[in-house]
């Protein structure tokens, strides 16, 4: 009996020591960031990285300011240095300067940074200066887990230039404790004659937001408001506008371009679909918190995440912030697809189609590439692969202000959020279902990724902000944007824009 017991103990001990779980614990103890999961086996796991020796080599990274993406960059740089012996220099740059900080030396034929962080829509301008992701990493276990749409976002015509570290899309966030509250539903019905439910259309969104604007509906002694949105000029506001436009202007029956007509390169931006969306947005200035038309992304996250508004829509950050342990509204929020519209513009027949339409907006997000002229490309790709390995990625997802959002198929498992982040099961389910449905949709809009993309988005920000400020009507504002877009197309060259735009249209038309 004693012999059997001893043998059994020895077997169990050796299994524990040599199984993946065993080294997971070892790395989890050494690196508290991944304590919840330990190391997760993969080509770029902690275990695999510890076998590399980059002593005497220096990796230079330009990333965003802390905390959003800057903090995980620095944290994983420190971990990478510890594991491989490399020296890693991290420079933090404000979001608005990321493009120029890389582009100026790129244009001058220099590579002061081996790794440059930016946004996924920089790809067209940056791709000439970035090294394609080598096959070795394309075939890694980590990469095989990345969703098809995020492989597409990081690639240009089949070649991946940006290493996927983040996945972004815009979706609706709402106060579940209000929308699902039977008493509130009764009150809303009595006052408006309408159902209180997760809004299916932007018109419903507006009606509910207006109703719940300017009074204390959660009994905390403070006034609450209808909606928190990114409306500050030049602060990602163009992305918010496109989120509101897709329902009216992305018609699955008119392939060939959401932003432009691909054949003629005539801008669609001032067609009645976009104008309707801008009209709604101007109306929204009446149900945002005081000062809401000057809200940047940080304000939006703080406002919705702090329990100030009923609705919000943009990136994941506001939702994750609302679901963090220190949030006053943890487990009181829900996720849902962006609202749709009861009619959609048909740009071929030049008429409205009176049928329900909804379109997900796979908005651009954080992206990162390795400079073609870098002398330590292998080390740079190893770092990026390590950045997004299973353990780091799961730990990063749980921290709202890290700015790392789901982009792997395994991220859509609700148990991750229930077990490691303490989310209620129905919230985790609605969150993962919302994201997964966007992946499956056949009516998606991808970000504009053409040469000189900033000129186009800046024109949208200027035009729409004039409408929000009451300087121009929605039609006048978008006519101005369309005129500016036509001038930019002429300046850049119609063919160059058209060729680049065709790649995005292929994705939207489900041909890639």
């Amino acid at each position: 009996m004693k012999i059997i017991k001893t043998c059994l103990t020895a077997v169990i001990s050796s299994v524990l020591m040599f199984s993946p779980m065993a080294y997971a614990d070892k790395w989890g103890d050494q690196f508290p960031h991944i304590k919840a999961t330990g190391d997760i086996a993969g080509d770029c796991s902690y275990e695999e990285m510890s076998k590399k020796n980059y002593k005497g080599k220096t990796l230079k990274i330009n990333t965003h300011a802390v905390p959003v993406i800057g903090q995980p960059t620095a944290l994983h740089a420190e971990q990478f240095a510890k594991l491989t012996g490399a020296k890693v220099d991290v420079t933090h740059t404000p979001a608005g300067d990321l493009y120029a900080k890389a582009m100026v030396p790129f244009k001058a034929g220099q590579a002061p940074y081996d790794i440059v962080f930016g946004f996924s829509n920089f790809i067209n301008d940056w791709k000439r200066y970035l090294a394609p992701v080598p096959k070795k990493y394309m075939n890694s276990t980590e990469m095989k887990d990345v969703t098809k749409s995020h492989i597409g976002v990081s690639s240009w015509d089949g070649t991946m230039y940006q290493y996927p570290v983040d996945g972004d899309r815009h979706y609706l966030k709402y106060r579940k404790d209000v929308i699902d509250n039977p008493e509130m539903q009764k009150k809303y019905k009595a006052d408006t004659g309408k159902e209180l439910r997760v809004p299916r259309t932007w018109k419903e969104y507006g009606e509910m937001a207006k109703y719940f604007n300017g009074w204390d509906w959660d009994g905390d002694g403070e006034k609450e408001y209808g909606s928190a949105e990114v409306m500050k000029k030049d602060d990602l506001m163009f992305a918010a506008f496109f989120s509101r436009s897709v329902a009216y202007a992305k018609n699955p029956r008119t392939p060939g371009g959401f932003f432009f007509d691909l054949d003629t390169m005539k801008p669609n931006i001032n067609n009645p679909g976009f104008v309707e969306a801008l009209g709604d947005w101007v109306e929204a200035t009446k149900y945002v918190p005081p000062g809401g038309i000057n809200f940047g992304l940080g304000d939006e996250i703080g406002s919705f995440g702090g329990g100030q508004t009923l609705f919000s829509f943009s990136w994941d950050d506001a939702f994750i912030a609302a679901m963090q342990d220190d949030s006053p509204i943890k487990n009181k929020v829900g996720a849902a697809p962006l609202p749709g519209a009861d009619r959609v513009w048909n740009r071929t027949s030049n008429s409205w189609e009176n049928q329900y339409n909804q379109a997900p907006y796979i908005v651009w997000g954080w992206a990162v590439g390795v400079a073609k002229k870098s002398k330590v490309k292998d080390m740079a790709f190893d770092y990026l692969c390590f950045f997004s390995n299973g353990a780091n990625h799961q730990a990063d997802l749980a921290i709202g202000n890290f700015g790392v959002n789901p982009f792997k198929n395994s991220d859509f498992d609700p148990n991750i959020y229930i077990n490691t982040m303490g989310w209620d099961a129905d919230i985790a389910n609605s969150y993962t279902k919302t994201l997964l449905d966007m992946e499956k949709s056949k009516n998606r809009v991808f970000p504009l990724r053409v040469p000189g993309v900033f000129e186009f988005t800046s024109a949208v920000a200027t035009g729409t902000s004039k409408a929000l400020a009451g300087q121009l009507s929605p039609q006048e504002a978008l006519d101005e944007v369309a005129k500016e877009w036509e001038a930019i197309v002429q300046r850049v060259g119609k063919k160059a824009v058209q060729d680049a735009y065709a790649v995005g249209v292929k994705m939207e038309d489900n041909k890639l």
Partner: protein
Amino acid sequence: MNFKQKYVFLFPGLFVLIGILIFPIIFVVRLSLSGWNSYNGLNFIGLENYIRLFTDDPRFWESFFRLSFLSVTTVILQYVIGFALAHMVWKDIKFQRFFRVLFLIPMMTTPVIMTVIWRTFFHESLGPVNDILSNFGMSPKWLTDPVLAKVTVIIVEVWQWTPFMFLLLLAGLLSLPKEPFLAAAIDGASPVRKFLYVTFPLMAPISIGAIIIRLIEASKIMDTVYVLTSGGPGTSTETSSFYIFIKGLREFQMGYAASMSFTYLIIMIISLTVIVKVLTKLMLKD
């Protein structure tokens, strides 16, 4: 005697001058004649950028007139308040040293950080200003109303830079000769007449200098606008430098931004020369 070696001593200074002043200007001019942007290199496109600027970019001119309004208004306010404060601590008053230091504090702070703090103050739903004003039934839209946003920019600029005006004017007051004041006192001049007929005329030369220095600085107003309003709502607080920044470093239209910068430089040189002449004529007429 021919001291040819003098050129050797001139060379370092000349080299620095060429490196930091002449070369950048020449480069900006060259850049302005190119279509350098994210998709083109330093090519040559002649006067295309200038033609676009003068014929097809009303936003630049709107931002220029807005800048003129903001800089003239802020400098006038800074001059009036700065003069009043300098005049106050010029005289023997209690805690004179304390006030002299106190009035200088805003200038010693970092403009960007202070603007972030002002933005927090003026935040319409979370800021303390509206929190207090709401007790009186008011909640002004400091940053989201096109007119009030300009007022907010003016308030922040005046707060930040009045101490500079104060410092120059106080130095001027302290250097004034005592005799004219003694003569005015013997003649029985009232404090107002003393100020109007003695202090103000004597301070005219330094006032012109202070106003011109501040006008030059105010015409570059950028950080306050960037942090407070990003030029919004709409384009209501967009100034020339902010617009050039957007075109150059946000949209990466380097060639076009260079043409705007060079045009702006020429306009500023001409207008400041005119302003100096006018001020000299008005203030030094006697």
